[in-house]
Structures are given as structure tokens and as C-alpha cells.
């Protein structure tokens, strides 16, 4: 087992719960344990008040009305509810949905499910910088298009899609616009009205809140209707039955509040960390490629391909760092990241990628140590890489006939 604590650089996978968030949550596990749906006593009222405060905090980040916020168990459920809920409610009028190849698995898998149930789905390609081509989106609309689902910020490469332009196009074409904003809250400004967003998913644990809670924004004017997935006591305006987990709701609200309050300062700080890190890497290592656009990107994400060094082999050499690789070998599937492939990253380079995710609690000393460790490991592994040797001798590895296996 690990004897020393690893440096955490996997902020797109999850984030630590902010102590300020946890502190707000604790009373609702203890003395204020009431059921927010109990109408007959103070325990219930207190819990209800806390939940409604949280709902308002979430709404404020999105510039929405609190009545438009539905609590869910996380972004996966919010995405399922948005996609299946809208698809089924409007299925008599519209049966076509548009999404992208780089969405999170929970959107793609939900789309596959809808396809099996009679809906048509268009999976938009992305440009090599990870962004969609608005003209391609425009051409994908049909009179049957009821919903467009495009993520705000990609979880692997951190790129920010042009939400306002997509929203305007959807409004023009008469389709609903859903965005998975799990990675976006607290990182980019969001405004559901200015951006014409009809449905928006978010998650607690990606924004320094607790795991097990998320929310779906559902527009009231003009009213967006959804078929519920979970039936029961009719909580959350019938969209999502089940007793609300008061402490988690409170945590999500507080997490949203802090994330938005600190967004600008944090963006600046993380940009500095990122630039310093990139400078260190590039000054010591050749043939390192950034996957995804650098400018249209959240500051706490880097996805780098270290050519000629396989990702998992590299991860074994940087045991002091906790991060993810786009390489096949880290997953059971042995397939490299579908997101990187959608960006047109060749398979050999996809195998050499690391996702470096940093955030609120990452220090400059940690980033410096990470850069040093990576440089050391890449240098060592290149010395034992036949591909590096070939490249140094001027052999183009693409010109070699490889026996696939």
C-alpha cells in the first residue's frame, strides 16, 4: 500500500468536499435530521427551509428561478432525466435528438437506449480542438429534432463548447437545448436565459460538494415538460419522487455558492499554475502534445500526450501522483479514450496521454513536484522506448508496417 500520500491531480474525476461545505451539512445529519417533506412539525420545516435555501443558491449560479431546480442523485441521473424525460414526453411530435461523440458515457449510453426504443440520434463529430462545428450542428437539424444535448465542458480535455451560439441555434430551430454542466459550474459563467438553455445538469462532487447529489435545471418559461423516471410521492414537482437528502442538498447549494463566489480569482490562480506547469514540461521534453483547445478550456485541466511513452507504463513511474491516463491499458477495455479518438488523436498518441486535473486545493509546490516527476519518468521511459529510438534515427513510425495484435 501507499505509505506517502499521493498528490491528487484527478479533479475531473472528483473533487474533495470543501470543509466549509461539510460544516454546513453536518447539522442536518445530527440535530436537524427532519424530513423536508414533513409539514406538521418544526423538524420538517427546518429541513425544508434548508433545502429551499440550497435550491436558491443553485438557481443563482445559473441565473435561474429556484422553482426550476430539481434535485437528483447526481449528473448521471440528471442527464438521464433530461434526455429520456424530454424524449418520451414529446415523442408524438419529435423523435430526433442531436448530441456529440465526446459526451460523457451517461449521455451516450442514454442515447443508445433511446435509439433502441425508436428514436433517431445524430452524434456530431468534433473538430481537432474538441469543439463542435456550428455549421455541422445547423445541418444536423431536421423537422423532427426535439432535443440537442451538448456538454458545457468536456471531462477529459476540458474544452468549453460555445453554449450561447448553440442555444441560439436551438431556439431558432425549435428544439430544446440540454447541457451537461457537471464540469462547468464555478469554472465558466453560466446564464440559462442568455444562453437559451432549457435543461442543465450539474453534480455535487465535481464542484467540491458531496457525492450522491446533483440537480437538473428545467425551464419554466416557456415550460419544458418531462416524463418522470422515478415515481412515488410526487416530490420535486413530480419530476423526481423520493425524500430529499437534506444534508446533500445543503452541501450542493453551499458548493455552488462558493464555486461561483470564487470563480474569477480561482480561474486566475489556476491559469498561472497551468502556464507554469506547461512551461516546465515543454522546456524539458520534446514531442509533448496538448489534446483539446488551450484557449477555450477550463484552467484546471491539461490533457497531454507524451509521444513514444505508453500511458500506463508512465503512470507506474509517477506513483506519487494520482491522475488518469487516456491509455487503454488503465481500463479493462484495452481501447484508448473515445474522446481523444473523436478529436482525431491517432491511436498511438492516445495511448501516451495523461489527464492532469487540478483545482482549489492544488498548490504550486504540488504542481512543481508533478512536473518534475513526469519529466523524470518520461525521460527514463523514452530511453527504453523503441519508438523513441526510431524517431531519433529519423524513422517515421507511421511508415512502418506494424503487426497489429
Amino acid at each position, binding site marked *: 500500500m501507499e505509505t506517502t500520500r499521493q498528490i491528487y491531480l484527478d479533479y475531473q474525476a472528483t473533487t474533495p468536499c470543501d470543509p466549509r461545505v461539510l460544516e454546513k451539512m453536518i447539522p442536518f445529519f445530527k440535530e436537524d435530521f427532519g424530513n423536508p417533506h414533513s409539514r406538521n412539525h418544526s423538524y420538517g420545516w427546518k429541513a425544508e427551509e434548508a433545502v429551499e435555501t440550497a435550491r436558491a443558491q443553485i438557481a443563482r449560479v445559473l441565473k435561474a428561478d429556484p422553482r426550476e431546480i430539481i434535485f437528483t442523485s447526481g449528473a448521471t441521473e440528471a442527464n438521464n432525466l433530461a434526455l429520456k424525460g424530454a424524449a418520451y414526453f414529446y415523442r408524438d411530435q419529435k423523435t430526433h435528438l442531436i448530441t456529440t461523440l465526446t459526451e460523457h458515457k451517461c449521455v451516450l449510453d442514454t442515447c443508445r437506449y433511446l435509439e433502441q426504443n425508436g428514436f433517431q440520434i445524430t452524434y456530431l463529430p468534433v473538430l481537432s480542438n474538441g469543439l463542435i462545428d456550428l455549421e455541422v450542428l445547423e445541418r444536423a437539424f431536421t423537422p423532427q429534432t426535439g432535443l440537442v444535448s451538448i456538454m458545457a465542458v468536456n471531462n477529459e480535455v476540458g474544452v468549453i463548447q460555445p453554449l450561447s451560439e448553440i442555444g441560439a441555434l436551438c431556439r431558432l430551430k425549435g428544439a430544446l437545448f440540454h447541457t451537461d454542466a457537471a464540469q462547468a459550474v464555478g469554472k465558466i459563467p453560466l446564464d440559462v436565459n442568455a444562453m437559451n438553455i432549457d435543461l442543465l445538469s450539474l453534480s455535487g462532487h465535481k464542484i467540491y460538494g458531496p457525492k450522491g447529489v446533483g440537480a437538473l435545471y428545467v425551464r419554466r418559461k416557456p415550460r419544458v415538460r418531462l416524463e418522470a423516471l422515478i415515481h412515488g410521492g410526487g416530490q420535486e414537482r413530480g419530476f423526481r419522487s423520493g425524500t430529499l437528502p437534506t444534508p446533500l442538498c445543503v452541501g450542493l447549494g453551499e458548493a455552488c455558492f462558493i464555486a461561483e463566489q470564487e470563480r474569477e480569482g480561482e480561474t486566475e490562480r489556476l491559469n498561472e499554475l497551468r502556464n507554469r506547469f506547461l512551461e516546465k514540461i515543454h522546456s524539458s521534453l520534446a514531442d509533448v502534445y496538448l489534446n483539446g483547445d488551450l484557449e477555450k478550456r477550463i484552467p484546471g485541466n491539461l490533457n497531454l500526450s507524451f509521444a513514444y511513452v*505508453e500511458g*500506463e507504463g508512465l503512470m*507506474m513511474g509517477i506513483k506519487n501522483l494520482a491522475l488518469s491516463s487516456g*491509455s487503454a*491499458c488503465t481500463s479493462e477495455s484495452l481501447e484508448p479514450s473515445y474522446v481523444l479518438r473523436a478529436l482525431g488523436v*491517432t491511436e*498511438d498518441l492516445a495511448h501516451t496521454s495523461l489527464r492532469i486535473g487540478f483545482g482549489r486545493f492544488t498548490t504550486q509546490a504540488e504542481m512543481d513536484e508533478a512536473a518534475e516527476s513526469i519529466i523524470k519518468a518520461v525521460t527514463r521511459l523514452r530511453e*527504453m*522506448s523503441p519508438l523513441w*529510438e526510431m524517431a531519433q534515427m529519423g524513422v517515421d513510425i507511421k511508415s512502418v508496417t506494424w503487426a497489429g495484435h
Partner: protein
Amino acid sequence: MSYSKQLIDHYENPRNVGSLDPKDMNVGTGLVGAPACGDVMKLQIRVTDDGVIADAKFKTFGCGSAIASSSYVTELLCGMTLTEATSIKNNAIAQHLALPPVKIHCSVLAEDAIKAAIQDYQNKQVESQR
């Protein structure tokens, strides 16, 4: 994924990393795998005139299991006759390093690399006799 001590040792202290002159008549080179698949092994052997492997070197692009498999193989090969080398099976490699099931292909690749290196050496001998 948790790895065995032997595997980690070979990853951290790989034996016989390097290259032999591929044009040398006594050197056989095997290059197997593909960058797109995430592993490429280059294995080279130097064979004495009486058919014994005097030296083995490797370079590997791949995960820790692939690096360890090729490192272990070079250790095995030194001092073996070509006949003995041909009989090395991937199971033996996988067992020694306690490869997890999803990494068995790394040992298969190492076995392929041995065969390819021996083949290359033998081709050279046949050609030189012509």
C-alpha cells in the same frame, strides 16, 4: 491494479535495456506489437557460433507488464541455446511475474518477440550461406 514484487522490480530496475547492431551477422532482431495497440517490443539477441545466446537487449514501449515481460525475457535468454529459447512459453513469463489476466497479452508479445528475434538470426545465417 496491484502488481507483484517481481514485476515492479523489473519495471523499476529493467535488465538489459539497450540495442545491439542490427546489421551484425550474429544479431537477431525481433520487433513486435504496434504503437496503435499500446505496446511495441524490440528484442535483440547475439548468438555465438555454437548457437548459444551470449547477450540479449530490449527496448519496449508499453505498460509496466510489457516492460517487465521483456526485461525478464532478456534475463532468461542469456546463456540459453536457440533450441531452449524457442521453447520459452508465455505461461512461464506470466507466472513468474504474476501478470493479472488482462495483461497476459504482454507475455504473449514477449514470446512472439523471442521467436521473431530467432527467426531474424536464422534468416541471416541462411542468406550468408547462399
